[in-house]
């Protein structure tokens, strides 16, 4: 499967390999969302298990965005990773797997990565007017939006 994808997209697929028995692809963000659609329709990855991101502040392209896909027919999982710079947006995959609706909102909430075309791109776990994205590496573990806490909770600090 990965060979045929590589044949079709060439250098767009930077890496396709296996680690500890788990397959993964590292792809160029320009191939999205077509590649995801092909994985769903041609390779039968009809269930998007999870969507998340990882922050590497010292890299040029700071974020890894990871889709974990599963195929009921083949009983197989695959991870699709793409790398994007801080401030760059990705096309939404809600029209491919509606389950990514909340997952994309969570990635936006925690990392500040926007998904273009998402029907309702807003925070999901934190309050809507909160400042900062906590799962970025430069966000401290006891850091908080003190102004928000002060105004909304009427206390100096939540710690």
């Amino acid at each position, binding site marked *: 499967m990965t060979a045929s994808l590589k044949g079709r997209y060439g250098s767009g697929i930077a890496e396709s390999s296996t*680690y*500890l028995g*788990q397959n*993964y692809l590292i792809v160029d963000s320009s191939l999205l969302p077509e590649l995801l*659609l092909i994985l769903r329709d041609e390779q039968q990855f*009809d*269930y*998007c*298990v*999870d969507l*998340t991101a*990882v*922050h590497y502040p010292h890299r040029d392209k700071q974020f890894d965005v*990871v889709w*974990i896909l599963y195929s*009921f027919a083949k*009983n197989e*999982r695959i*991870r699709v990773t793409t790398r994007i710079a801080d401030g760059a947006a990705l096309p*939404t995959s*809600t*029209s*491919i*797997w*509606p*389950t990514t*609706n*909340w*997952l994309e909102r969570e990635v936006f909430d*925690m990392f500040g990565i926007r998904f273009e075309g*998402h*029907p*309702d791109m807003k*925070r*999901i*776990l*934190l*309050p809507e007017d909160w400042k900062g994205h*906590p*799962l970025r590496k430069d*966000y401290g*573990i006891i850091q908080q939006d003190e102004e928000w806490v002060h105004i909304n909770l009427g206390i100096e600090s939540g710690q």
Partner: protein
Amino acid sequence: MTDPTTYISHLELGEPDKTYLDSNELIINMGPQHPATHGVLRVILKLDGEKVLGTECVIGYLHRGVEKIAEHRTYTMFNPYVDRMDYVAAVSNGLGYCEAVEKLLNIEAPPRANYIRLILTELNRLASHQLWLGTHALDIGAITPLFYLFRDREEILKIFERYCGARLTTHAFRIGGCQYETYEGFERDVEKFVAFARPKIDEYETLLTTNRIWLERTRGIGKISAADCKALGVTGPVLRASGVKWDLRKAKPYAAYADVDFEVPIGTNGDTYDRYLVRMEEMRQSLRILEQAVAKIPEGPIMAKVPKVLKPPVGEIYHSIEAPKGELGYFIVSDGSTQPYRLRVRPPSFVNLQALDLMVRDQLVADVIAVIGTLDIVLGEVDR
């Protein structure tokens, strides 16, 4: 390409306009303080009289930043935190986490540890389903089952307490196996519990399965098709009740599940009643698994050889298990240090809750309560 808004509504919640009082549409809040939302879940309902036109869930009231905490703890130190996500199925959370880290370290728990894990996890599945049935029935108006189920769940919690000292947030497993050897009489206790619980499940069924009120409140309510379940990533008993025979214990066996014989029950209609039947049958299958596991439990060590300081090699891993609520996964990125570089939890409750909107559209307000109950969510896990 599908239109995502057919699955999840997008409510326009602006200021009420001048014609607000003339219109039949009404927007009201259910929760966050509402006994039937099973925690701090707020659902905004758009109603036409009693009919639900659309919903929007507001979550995050219980957000504790578990994933951020993980990045600042060692692999061992983070272990007890996972129990606090789905706190009614803490053992399953621990199992998923320990197995994920073991995979990353390339070690395997010894067979005896795997059996102990299997027994405790299945007991926990029963406890979780019992709590679900008790509260779900209570929400719908049947009070008696709650008392029966809490009485019987107590027997499971007693076994947990005797095994590791805790009843709810057990922290029963360690990376590489189990911390504690089973206590004297553990097998006998489990056998006694199986003999005790089997007739009890029939008893719950006599209370509900053919009960006229129960049938009226659950049949045809909150229907969801198999295709919609897959599109929305819904897993666990909800997916199986829609007719998909898929269970991670069979699809990708872990612990000692490959050694035991059990059936995966499925439903046909995908309604609240079918989900009830599926979970009841799952409880019986859990008893079957327990019976076999106790008879087969091997002798031997309970901990693999694990270094004192855990430093997994650089790499990424995704491992998931069949928790009582669905697929519970851990995605861990290691940078070779003692702390996870990134730890992501794939919570079944969070993903399943997305289906609420589709399931209650065009139904009555009272059915929203039934559907929240049948989804079996735990807000500790939704918000993490």
